[in-house]
């Protein structure tokens, strides 16, 4: 048996990105996503010490315990990961942040904080593991569940869904993607792109709940996702040091997006007329997908013109958390000078 482990550019093996074994159900979409996060961080040669993991409360929010065991993490409060992450990233704007939330965490209790996180453009990857159902409390509908759905425990859903991607686009997010836990390659490429993005990157990933919402006719099930996924593009992530190699490059069908850190994204169009640079178009496509029973996936919207919160804040290279004391406490003379005006 070959026991030699391949090392990445920072000399780490894939095992160095692993963490505690998952306690989620076998077959849960969230486990697949956690595995893709491990793979992507290994592939990108990120140092775990330069990454923080954040989450709220729920099945999805448990999952940061299951990847990147050498990264600091915080499994916080239900729906409050955005504010916690905002504070953490203002304290240290030099780390990368991977946030994992769920549809209850983001679509219900945390919708307000989510919208404001988008508005502030905090530099983090915000993954919504979206399964339309509350797992830990045993099967209630979430706000993303489809209109009119019937579930054994929850009964009939009388209300239309909140679309997390639509909310992100409307709130001004510059990176909004939708994916499907059953489409591992697409999840990986989108995660890589998201980690290279300048500000807040929202990934709404349909991630089936095998315990409560995986009937074939459910729009959050594996079967329905596989049958109805309509990918807008075939996505390829190209690291800054790598060359773009595209067979049959045709500017009409393939688009290259330059990301903030020098990496690039190749988007081979699967829908000829879709360009991910038009908010209204993105909303229209999502709406049409919803009406036609399609799971529209891919990079829905991209715009990197808006600075992140850290950029707006004008920080220097050293994070606030690592500033020396003499920059944190002004001098005795400064105090005396200021007080003189109050005499």
């Amino acid at each position, binding site marked *: 048996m070959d026991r030699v482990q391949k090392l990445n550019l920072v000399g780490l093996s894939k095992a160095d990105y692993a963490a505690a074994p998952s306690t989620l159900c076998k077959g849960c979409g969230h486990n697949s996503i956690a595995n893709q996060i491990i793979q992507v961080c290994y592939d990108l040669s990120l140092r775990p010490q330069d990454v923080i993991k954040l989450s709220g409360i729920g099945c999805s929010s448990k999952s940061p315990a299951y990847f990147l065991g050498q990264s*600091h*993490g915080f*499994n916080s409060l239900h729906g409050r990961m955005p504010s916690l992450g905002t504070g953490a990233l203002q*304290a240290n704007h030099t780390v990368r942040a991977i946030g994992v939330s769920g549809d209850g965490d983001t679509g219900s209790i945390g919708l307000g904080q989510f919208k*404001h996180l988008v508005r502030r453009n905090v530099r983090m990857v915000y993954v919504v593991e979206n399964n339309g159902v509350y797992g830990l409390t045993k099967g209630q509908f979430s706000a993303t569940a489809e209109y009119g759905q019937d579930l054994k425990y929850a009964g009939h859903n009388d209300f239309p869904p909140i679309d997390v991607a639509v909310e992100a686009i409307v709130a001004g997010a510059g990176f909004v993607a939708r994916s499907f836990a059953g489409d591992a390659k697409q999840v990986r490429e989108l995660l890589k792109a998201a980690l290279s993005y300048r500000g807040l990157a929202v990934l709404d990933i349909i991630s089936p709940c095998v315990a409560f919402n995986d009937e074939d006719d459910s729009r959050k099930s594996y079967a329905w996702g596989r049958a109805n996924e309509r990918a807008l593009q075939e996505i390829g992530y190209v690291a800054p040091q790598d060359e773009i190699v595209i067979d049959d490059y045709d500017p009409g069908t393939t688009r290259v997006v330059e990301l903030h850190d020098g990496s690039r994204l190749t988007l081979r169009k699967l829908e000829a007329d879709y360009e991910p640079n038009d908010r209204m178009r993105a909303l229209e496509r999502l709406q049409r997908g919803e009406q036609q029973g399609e799971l529209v996936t891919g990079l829905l919207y991209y715009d990197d013109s808006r600075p992140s919160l850290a950029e707006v804040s004008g920080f220097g290279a050293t994070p606030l958390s690592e500033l020396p004391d003499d920059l944190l406490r002004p001098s005795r003379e400064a105090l005396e000078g200021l007080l003189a005006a109050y*005499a």
Partner: protein
Amino acid sequence: MGVQEPLSSPRVGPEAAAIVNDFSIAVATANGTGSQTANLTLLRSFFKMGIPVHGKNIFPSNIQGQPTWYHIRVSRHGYIARRPPELLVAFNAATIHEDVAGLPAGGVCVYNADIRHSPDRTDLTYYPVPVKELLEGVQVSGKVKDYIANMTYVGVVAHLLGVPLEVVRQALEHQFGGRAKLVDSNFDVVLRSHAWAQESLRKLDPYRVEPMEATEGLILMTGNEAGALGAVFGGVSVAAWYPITPSTSFIDALREFLPRLRKDPEGRPTYSVIQAEDELAAIGMVVGAGWAGARALTATSGPGLSLMAEFLSLAYFAEVPAVVWDIQRVGPSTGLPTRTSQGDVAFAYGVGHGDTKHVLLFPSSIEECFEFGYKAHDLADQLQTPVIVLSDLDLGMNNWMGEPFAYPDRPLQRGKVLSAEEVERLERFRRYADVDGDGIPYRTLPGNQNPRAAWFGRGTGHDEDARYSERSDDWWRNMQRLDRKFQTARGYVPQAVIEEVPGARLGVVCYGTTRYAIEEARDALAMQGVALDVMRVRALPFGPEVEAFVERHDDLLVIEMNRDNQLRNILRAELPQHAPKLHGVGYIDGMPLTAEWVERQVLGHLNGRAD
């Protein structure tokens, strides 16, 4: 215009002994008319004359047009508690009747003669001021004219009390930060009004000011400014907040001081201030920043603190430093947003569910606001827990005299934070292990480059290694350690200030700004032969000196500004053996206590009457 004849025969005429530097003035106006500038000009004039002074803004929760009062107390003895005013400046038609009715016999009423009002009390001295007439020929227009109209009473009061005009000008210069045009136009009205008063009013009341030297070297500042300045010198680098009276001016001050004092050599900010979408997010940002290693604070008041309960519970349990300034107003609920109280003590002490407990600090002065401003961050870091500073509206929003603040006497206390090298030297880093026996564990910060430094923060049950645990023994052991840490805190927090005298019949216990009324009452009672010991508690959990004070007194009276005797109840619960002798008198109506009220309560208690 001829000399005004007295409209009544005051009981105290000009022949009566002058009352010098010992009275209170109430200025009644409508809010949003710029009267605050006029009031602060008067306040600072007295201060510049060397007379101990304090001003209280009693304002409505409103932007424009509602009644507002400003109380100024001058006291040659240095007493600055609220005292019902003897002098009234009545410039608000809506309240003039009630304001005049509230004056004591022998009082003085300076009023806007344009208000239709018939002076109807024979035991007052009235001075009508023809405001419109005085403003004729003043070269300003519109709203500015309304603002500047208030300067008429500044001029008249300056004349009646004997405030030198050059002092008023200095006060105006301070008020307008030296903007000459504004100083000139306002001072012009002061001069006109002063000249008119000199010529037209016959001084018939006994109240006067004379220069003293009691404010030499002192500063005049609000508690919110002082607290914010303390935080700046405490290295606060992330502040997140949601606007709420009366805490907003804390953040305003922070946003004024930080850009002046906290830039790195390249001129970049060493701080971040974020206006959050609500208090849940504000405290979330603070806890996130604290976890990541920055010193972080939020400022709020009761309704905001209610919203912060879940994050404060998390921060207690996950052991994350955070500083919360609660500038107390009157609750429950929205309550009286612009009135003062000490109503949040019980809630703040345990805000959060389960066995959550927090460290509280009780500043009583601008010096303590500054000192606790930086010490709160030291304590939060040392104890890895939220520290809640319980100020109040009276302290936070009003101007108080104080000594220039002492520069912090020791460097920032960052507590048990391990560097990458320190982790390397350990056999194993265990986030929640009680290595030193004081209940305080070691932590590492995100960005620590040692691969063994990471830990996973969580509000769920955890073991010493921060791993998820539902084990009963893990839970109990952790909660016992957290309690051990809380006991350790008793030795870290500011000690109570205790003043004892021979022959005292009663031990009075207080905290925060009630000290001013209590100290004045203590002195007055001492003159009557009733000696009091006074202990001013400055933190919870309290240190051993508090228990010792309670121990050596047979009769104690805890005086506080809330209905339910909140601190008294905490003392009773934590010192059950002394519970029967811990009496309490709690009162809350939105106004700061007066010495006269305290005196009555103490005498009532000693005479065996019910609270």
